């Protein structure tokens, strides 16, 4: 990914609301897209992934949408809880190519959930 400044996008929601976090990716050859959650002082934690031949995938309280036409990825969190507060990163990988599955991370978004 491209380097970004120190000011990450932020999203503030009330507990119980739905959250939508967006991400633009750059590599048309990427075949997997992954969302990670990172809490302060911890490493990124896998949330959900989606393969490039899909446009939607659902998990527990989370849904990922992929729009390859505009190279856009979104993460929807239902009934957001205070424990969801963290920085969220999208990542892409070309697992079938020569990148050996190494991840290219996008710009993070700070999610803050107010009780």
């Amino acid at each position, binding site marked *: *990914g491209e*380097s*970004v*400044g*120190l*000011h*990450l996008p932020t999203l503030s929601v009330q507990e119980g609301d739905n959250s939508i976090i967006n991400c633009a990716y750059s590599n048309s050859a990427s*075949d*997997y897209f*992954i969302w*990670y959650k990172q809490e302060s*002082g*911890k*490493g*990124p*934690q*896998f949330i959900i*992934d989606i*393969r490039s031949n899909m446009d939607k995938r659902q998990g527990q309280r989370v849904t990922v949408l992929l729009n390859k036409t505009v190279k856009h990825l979104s993460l929807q969190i239902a009934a957001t809880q205070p424990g969801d507060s963290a920085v969220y*990163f999208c*990542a892409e*990988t070309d*697992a*079938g190519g020569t*990148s*050996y*599955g*190494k*991840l*290219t*991370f*996008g*710009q*993070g978004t700070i999610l803050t959930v107010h009780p």
Partner: protein
Amino acid sequence: GAGVSQTPSNKVTEKGKYVELRCDPISGHTALYWYRQSLGQGPEFLIYFQGTGAADDSGLPNDRFFAVRPEGSVSTLKIQRTERGDSAVYLCASSLGPIGVSSYNEQFFGPGTRLTVL
């Protein structure tokens, strides 16, 4: 079970010194990655090991950085003549491998080592 562990959790050093950062991957994971994360940014790829060999070191910023994985398990990232710009969190991740043509193996990240170069 045990996740990826990294030691030390924090390392403060002076400019010009040599440092080693250690990563213990999840047992049985043959693929190991090092990433670097600067403040306010996403992790950036440094190097990838499949077994004992470095299959892709294209992310290492210069020849001051080197990594080894002699027995295909524990890996050490070595930084010579540290500079203030090397200050960052160094993350290690492991996954089941090898990466297949049509498969993606989830990468499990460790907590990172926060390196501060004074």
